């Protein structure tokens, strides 16, 4: 059972260095061969400063910095019961190799509901990322579902 008192909790900011090799590893694992993600010259010709982060790149800091694990622990969610329900991105600035991002995570909402599939708790968490110029670069909202059975 997720702890509803944790709603609104904000986490200590964390920093994340955007590395070219890790960006490449991600698009290669997806099989996305768009040259703007792989080749600096192609990216520049297409109007970017450098190879931009692909649309789902920002999942990396959330996983590697163990943000979701920490939220699950605070809410007393058992990871094996947890499903990823939704993922929502808002893009404000391109992210490039060498950028230093600061992520600020918070728990936006915790709700319990019953439906045909059974009882579940639904947690909505958000991470807002700013870049080294303190510009808001990206906002990620994730919906995590804990099945209670």
């Amino acid at each position, binding site marked *: 059972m997720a702890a509803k008192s944790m709603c609104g909790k904000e986490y200590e900011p964390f920093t994340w260095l955007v590395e070219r090799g*890790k960006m490449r*590893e*991600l698009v*290669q*694992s*997806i*099989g*996305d*061969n*768009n*040259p*703007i993600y792989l080749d600096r010259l192609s990216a520049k010709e*297409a*109007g*970017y400063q450098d190879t*931009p982060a*692909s*649309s*789902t790149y920002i*999942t*990396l800091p959330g*996983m*590697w910095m163990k943000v979701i694990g920490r939220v699950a622990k605070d809410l007393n969610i058992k*990871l094996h019961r947890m*499903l*990823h*329900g*939704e*993922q*929502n*991105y*808002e*893009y404000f600035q*391109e992210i490039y190799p060498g950028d230093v991002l600061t992520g600020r995570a918070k728990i936006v909402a915790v709700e319990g509901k019953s439906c045909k599939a059974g009882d579940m708790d639904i947690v909505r968490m958000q991470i807002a990322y700013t870049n080294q110029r303190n510009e808001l670069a990206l906002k990620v909202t994730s919906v995590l579902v804990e099945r209670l059975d």
Partner: protein
Amino acid sequence: MNDSQPGFDNLMVGGEMHKLVKAPVTHKQLVKYSGASGDFNPIHTDPEVGRAAGTGLIAHGMLIMGFAGQAITDWLPKKYLRKFSVRFVGMARPGDVVTVTGKVKEKIRVPSQRILCEITAKNQKDEVLVTGVFEAEFPNE
């Protein structure tokens, strides 16, 4: 990567984005995606864990969202993308062939030129894996 990226005026409500048909998902791909993304839940990579769970190995939902993202930025410049949301509906497994389709739902002219689109990823049995929406903003010419 498709070279013929459409302009705002060429896009019609109901018009379809370029369809993306992915190569079959492989176990190796799930291992690579785990290493890239940092998601080491063994349900994605360890066949024993998949068997015990009764599901077999299942692909990361975020990998399927990555396929959907690939389809979007094959079709439109990445720099136009403003919002992208998905719901994870079904599970993909090694061997599955994922197809991403989408269409324009709305065109907005003011205060900026934007399109709202829906996007869907399905497997070879036409079962929905991921459904979502995205918004792209075109520069004013």
